[in-house]
């Protein structure tokens, strides 16, 4: 199957296979991404993150429905953590989205973190590109906001939304720091619960402290399960998109994200190169033994090896 042709011809099967190729690092993945790259950059990318149980999937489902009503096609990438014990994962985000799964204009893909830190954001970024080339107008990346890797993933989005719920207490404290910087908008979901005002004030205070310049992240309230407040969230997303465009920040953001991606790619290639040319040699094994016996020191050796590679 010609995946590139398929993706550009809007074959859903090809899109699915393309993402798999990227995710599994198949040899043909690079070729696919090279061919698809010129066809990317058109979709608007929305990152959604927040603690477990905040209702991100439900909100994603409702947003997708609203975008569909407005004639936009939607891609969704839902990232869930891999179990550190078994390497397996249960990906359950789709359960909230089953009634849009049949919509021709929606493509949903679940991805497991697979324990790889840097690699994950690259793979997610590539999966986004596949859906971009496939023709999705809006691509939503949904991920649990618990670790740095998840933060890295949503950072590649044009607009990042942080979803919180009242009454989670400590969880919010724990992720507060990371969230502050990445949230372009905040949504308090399950806003029919007690503690909304308190949470709202807390977020306000955090924003005050961070002293945002230019864009002031709005705080919306939703009851996603009842579709309440969803339109307001979309208004805020659009307002942010408009702001990014008019302030030229979109260009700057995307340039930044391309730069980060390129540097990461180079770093990754260097890492692979080193693995191949350095660690898999017999000399390397010997070096380790000598280091262990304190015959040599690692600082000089590292410089030596680098000199050799750079030659």
């Amino acid at each position, binding site marked *: 199957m010609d995946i590139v042709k398929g993706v550009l011809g809007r074959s859903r099967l090809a899109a699915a296979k393309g993402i798999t190729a990227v995710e599994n690092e198949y040899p043909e993945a690079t070729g696919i991404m090279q061919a698809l790259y010129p066809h990317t950059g058109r979709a608007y990318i929305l990152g959604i993150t927040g603690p477990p149980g905040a209702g991100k999937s*439900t909100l994603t489902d409702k947003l997708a429905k609203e975008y569909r009503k407005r004639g936009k096609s939607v891609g969704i990438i839902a990232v869930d953590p891999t179990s550190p014990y078994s390497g397996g994962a*249960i990906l*359950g*985000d789709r*359960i909230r989205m089953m009634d849009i799964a049949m919509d021709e204009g929606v493509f949903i893909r679940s991805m497991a973190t697979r324990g790889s830190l840097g690699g994950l954001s690259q793979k997610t970024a590539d999966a986004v590109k596949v859906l971009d080339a496939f023709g999705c107008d809006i691509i939503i990346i949904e991920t649990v906001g618990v670790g740095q890797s998840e933060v890295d993933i949503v950072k590649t989005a044009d607009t990042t939304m942080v979803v919180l719920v009242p009454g989670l207490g400590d969880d919010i404290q724990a992720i507060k720091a990371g969230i502050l910087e990445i949230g372009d908008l905040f949504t308090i979901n399950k806003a029919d619960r007690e503690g909304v005002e308190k949470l709202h004030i807390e977020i306000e205070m955090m924003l005050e402290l961070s002293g945002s310049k230019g864009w002031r992240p709005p705080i919306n309230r939703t009851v996603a*399960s009842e579709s309440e407040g969803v339109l307001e969230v979309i208004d805020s997303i659009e307002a942010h998109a408009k702001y990014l465009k008019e302030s030229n920040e979109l260009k700057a953001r995307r340039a930044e994200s391309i730069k980060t991606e390129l540097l990461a790619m180079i770093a990754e290639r260097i890492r692979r190169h080193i693995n191949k040319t350095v660690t898999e040699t017999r000399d390397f094994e010997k070096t380790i033994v000598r280091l262990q016996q304190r015959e040599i020191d690692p600082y000089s050796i590292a410089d030596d090896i680098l000199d050799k590679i750079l030659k």
Partner: protein
Amino acid sequence: MANEKILEGLKAYNAAVEKTLAKSPERTNLEVNRLYTPLDIEGFDYETNLGFPGSYPFTRGVQPTMYRGRFWTMRMYAGFATAAESNKRYRLLLERGGSGLSCAFDLPTQIGYDSDDPIAEGEVGKVGVAIDSLEDMEVLFDQIPLGKVSTSMTINAPAAILLAMYIAVAEKQGVPASQLNGTIQNDILKEYSSRGTYIFPPAPSMRLITNIFEYCSQNVPRWNSISISGYHIREAGATAAQEIAFTIADGIAYVEAALKAGMDIDDFAGSLSFFWNAHNNVLEEVAKFRASRRVWSKLMKERFGAKKPKSQMLRVHTQTAGSMLTAQQPDNNVVRVALQTAAAVMGGTQSLHTNSKDEALALPSEASVTVALRTQQIVAEESGLADVVDPLGGSYYVEALTDKIEAECWDYIKKIDDLGGAPVAIEKGYIQREIQESAYKWQMQVEKGERVIVGVNKYVDKKEVPPKDLLRVDASVGEGQKKRLAALRAKRDNAAVDAALDALEEGAKDEKVNLMPLILTAVKAYATEGEICKRLRKVFGEYKAISTL
């Protein structure tokens, strides 16, 4: 014997045991102590812990004489294929000495779809009888005197509709609603947590339930308007303590909803009934039944201020554990069911369904359902278990176990209260996760051989021949129902149907309206169950599950 003396004796006993253990060790994976003595029930006070049968805290049973007067109701759960075929089975069961009916409905009926809905494809008449309209209900109870039998209906999300149909059929038989005896399951919370046949979101579902409470207390006073069910929670994998704890937590939520709707506790509490599972571990089950009565009576008296004794009683229907039946060597299931029956009887159940040996393979055949009923009759008439009230009362082990299960139950109730009550705990996935955890633990114990299931992971028969004579539901049932529906829609007064449905839809929009009378009118006009639910879905929306894995 004073405790010091017992302690001394126990020390001597333990020393002797050490010697025995050196020669022959005990089995591993035993979850209970070796021996129970008065030391295990220290602080035991007969008056407060047990009291007398028929009075607070009802540990020993809800009636003073229990089965010495009348046996429990032998109520066999049945229903499959068409109303006509199920009617035949009901009459057979009554003729063979069954003392109550229990209706199983197929999944489209349970989830509010007509048999001709595309989503019902393949499901019509499979796990129960297909009921689309009053016309089917008339056939289902044909020649069965509704003024005399008591009928239990396993129906939840659309309970109001099926109850309305039952009332309408009775009326046609000349039996007024005030004389009807029976139960509707009507327990939506456990559908969200364990069983999955929900339709509407929690808020409108709770409204329908309180509408039924109110309607029944005024018009169908002898009817049990809810059967708060632990059965399915247990089947989903919960432990004995979890089964009663999560169910009682659901019960608290229903009581609170009714109180919030302005009802007086003593006006409806007496019509609340429960539904337990009778599992394999006989003594643990007996303790569970006893503990559950004690917990509920304390809650009703102390927390809700119920005054009538009937309001404080936990009356219970029981079913033997379907999930404990094995597809392997199915004859063994007869023995399992007999032991489970013994547990339910010693636990003091008010009614009982016994499963048939072939239910891990298919719906029960006529022959196997007869053996299941006979099992109850043998326990009742021959075993002597029904001759004494609470025969295990005072057993050190059973009393200690009753206390332990009760304590676990209170712990869970507190946790759930802290989360904001059962509906919130379910919404957060807490209850589902606790159940899943137990289910997974059980499965792994079985797979590692730490828990023996005869014929499955031990004493396996390699040359086993699959049983014959299984009941098969004819694939034509769905087609037949479709034709019946088409004929019904052609001959009924469709203007009257539309008017009734419009009125119902309007009523649904106003939270203060009791929907029971509107549903009754629609049912009598031969509006189908699917049509009624469609209107309610339009107003209420549909519930969507959360991922709890």
